[in-house]
């Protein structure tokens, strides 16, 4: 005969069971007998289960991510841009080519893996997800800001290049190569006034920006960093403080800016503001002087610049006004790959703006020479195109802050189309440095 247990499930009993469960959990926790010691490692099946959960989560939650069209993960400039951050942000735990992991790190549970063998097992989108969001309970931090996907992609590009990287290449990319060593020779005497921390900090900056502020990277990886040489001291100081306080978002720049005290940041701002820009005798400059001197309206590729896509027979030139002065890209349609037209458009925006689209001339504030300028407005001439492009988009999305004047760009960037941003970025990149 079967024995039946007379038990009826009621809502009250369910609530009672739940309460008992919570009480039991609290009791276990309160007893202090749970094993949380890193020294003991994981019980193998538990370790496997946790890792499997993590892999599934990363694989599933990264499904909506894909490499943006304008990002080429094999671009050496991206590798160069993220290398310096790897040295301070990642290498201390994961090691690096030629650098062993510390026994301290290896005593973590779970301990951070060396990456050479791991990277190949993850897709681009998964690497991106891990770098951006980090992994709870494992010690893997999230990216210091959630607003800078462009930086995270650069880091993915670096990781892709990483397994094949020789110790020498790594040292050159991330540690400043031969230039990164503590003050020597002539350069050392220039910084003689610096105390140890400032000199150290400058070396830290120089791993990416170079001591001259022109940015490291040559050949294919040239233009990996914005040029900071010769920017005004006030601007550099305010920008470093904005990074320090978290107003301006950057996973690359926030960590070093918060690493050093204000006095050191000030000294660094002075140092870079005093770095000379390369001589003015660049051929492109005389070219530029000529074109700017000409009639402000007439010389901008007159046939195409006035054409906004409406055929002349229904929109005669005589009917157009300054207020409606619009150009092809205003309606969004420059011919693909027409570099000259793109630069023309960029120059128009930089020098005259597009009043009918409420885009003022960039040079009203950002030209370095020729007129008095607020110290907190940076020059743009010679900055790499990706830098201007990225930051205009950040402004457009409303996530870019910086110095206390940064909000001025909000209302401007939001008026610009992607094409106009690309054009004006290309134009400034083509200018001599500091213009």
């Amino acid at each position: 005969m079967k024995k039946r247990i007379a038990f009826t499930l009621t809502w009250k009993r369910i609530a009672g069971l739940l309460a008992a469960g919570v009480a039991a959990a609290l009791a276990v926790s309160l007893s202090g007998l749970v094993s949380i010691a890193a020294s003991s490692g994981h019980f193998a099946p538990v370790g496997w289960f946790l890792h499997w959960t993590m892999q599934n989560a990363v694989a599933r939650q990264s499904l909506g991510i894909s490499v943006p069209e304008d990002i080429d993960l094999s671009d050496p400039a991206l590798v160069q841009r993220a290398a310096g951050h790897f040295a301070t942000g990642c290498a201390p735990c994961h090691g690096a080519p030629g650098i062993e992991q510390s026994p301290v790190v290896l005593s973590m549970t779970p301990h951070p893996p060396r990456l050479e063998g791991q990277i190949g097992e993850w897709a681009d989108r998964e690497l991106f997800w891990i770098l951006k969001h980090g992994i709870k309970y494992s010690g893997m931090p999230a990216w210091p800001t959630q607003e800078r996907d462009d930086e995270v992609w650069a880091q993915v590009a670096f990781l892709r290049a990483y397994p094949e990287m020789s110790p020498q290449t790594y040292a050159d990319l991330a540690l400043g190569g031969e230039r990164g060593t503590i003050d020597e020779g002539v350069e050392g005497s220039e910084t003689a006034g610096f105390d140890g921390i400032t000199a150290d900090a400058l070396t830290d900056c120089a791993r990416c920006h170079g001591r001259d502020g022109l940015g490291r990277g040559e050949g294919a990886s040239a233009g990996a960093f914005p040029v900071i040489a010769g920017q005004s001291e006030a601007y550099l100081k305010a920008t470093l403080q904005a990074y320090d306080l978290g107003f301006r978002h950057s996973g690359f720049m926030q960590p070093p800016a918060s690493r050093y005290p204000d006095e050191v940041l000030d000294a660094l701002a002075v140092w870079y503001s005093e770095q000379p820009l390369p001589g003015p005798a660049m051929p492109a400059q005389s070219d530029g002087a000529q074109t700017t001197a000409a009639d402000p309206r007439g010389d901008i590729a007159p046939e195409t610049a006035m054409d906004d896509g409406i055929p002349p027979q229904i929109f005669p030139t005589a009917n157009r006004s300054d207020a409606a002065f619009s150009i092809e890209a205003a309606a969004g349609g420059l011919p693909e790959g027409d570099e000259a037209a793109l630069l023309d458009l960029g120059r128009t925006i930089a020098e005259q703006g597009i009043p009918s689209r409420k885009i003022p001339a960039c040079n009203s504030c950002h030209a370095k020479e020729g007129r008095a300028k607020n110290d907190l407005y940076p020059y743009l001439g010679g900055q790499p195109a990706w830098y201007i492009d990225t930051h205009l988009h950040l402004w457009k999305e409303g996530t870019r802050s910086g110095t206390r004047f940064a909000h001025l760009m909000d209302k401007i960037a939001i008026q610009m189309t992607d094409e106009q941003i690309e054009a004006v970025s290309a134009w400034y990149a083509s200018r001599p440095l500091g213009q």
Partner: protein
Amino acid sequence: MPDARSLKPCRAERRAKPWNSVFQSPRPPHKASIAVGASALSAKTLTHGARCPSFAAKRLGLTTLLLPLALSGCVGPQSTFGGAGSEAAAVEALFWFMLWGAVFVWVVTIGIAIYATRVSPGRHSERTGIRFILIGGVIFPTVTLAGLLVYGLKMMPEMRSEANGPTIAVSGERFWFRVAYGVEGEPGVVKSLPPGGVESANEIYLPVGQRSELLLGSPDVIHSFWVPALAGKMDMIPGRVNRLVIEPVREGVYNGVCAEFCGDAHAQMGFRVIAVSPEAYAAHVEAQSQPAALTSGPGLDAFMKNGCDACHTVRGTEADGAIGPDLTHLASRRTLGAGLLAMSEENIATFVRATDHVKPGVEMPSFGVLPDAEITAIAAWLGALK
């Protein structure tokens, strides 16, 4: 007709009535004008047969005092009853004619209804009744409405007729009005406003007794140009130039507004129309065409240094931005911020310092981050540009 409530003791009345809050309100009366309208009505009904004469008298006094406030929308610089323009006057005449006509028809209709149901029901035959309905319900309205239609339509060509005064381009832009006197151009589709002219903003001078032609357009979204005291509305549509002819008949300052919702600061998008004699108009345009009165000094330096010229023009200086209002003769205008603040040096400084606070949604960024000395210098300079 005694109101049932008025028979209750006065104390209960005092507690229960909505106008009580108005009566004891510490707020300035203009803010309570909506409640006042209601109080005027209820007070009137209640005084009839009320048992508390002194209180009733008070209420009556209050009503007399506040009634003009309730009706204040019907007078002043933004009233359609001003009749300060030929079009507005014609429309006003049409309005009164139709109002009194409607009152007449209503009184007659109700009178007949009372006669037919109360005074002598069943006196007339059904045949008479049907004939009456045919005449009074079909023929009379048809003739009357046709007459009104003809009368109304007859006004339209007059409003559209040739201008004999100046042509002025007005561009509605979020959230202000760009003005250019003496342009040459025509209305039409796929057109932008004609270039040139003497530029100003948020203030339009018009000569009295002349039919000025306004060419209306917009570079961004649809706005609507409306000066209630002078003429009807006309939309300002991107990609199209509309035409509005205005003939002011009386000198004065009239308020204009944007009458089509266009964004956050739509309610703060106003302007002034100043109707003056043709001689004074010519003198004003001549004065506006001059370069700025003061073209050097710390104010201009601060203006240029901080890039204000990216958006603003001050003729006679290097500032040639075409995005915001022309500031060449800023201080000669009556208002600042598109009809928002009275023109004064202090208000200019306030506007520069807290733009978004003074005019929420404005497209100009706030420059409160500038050192105070620079803001003061800029305000002093702009305040001197008569």
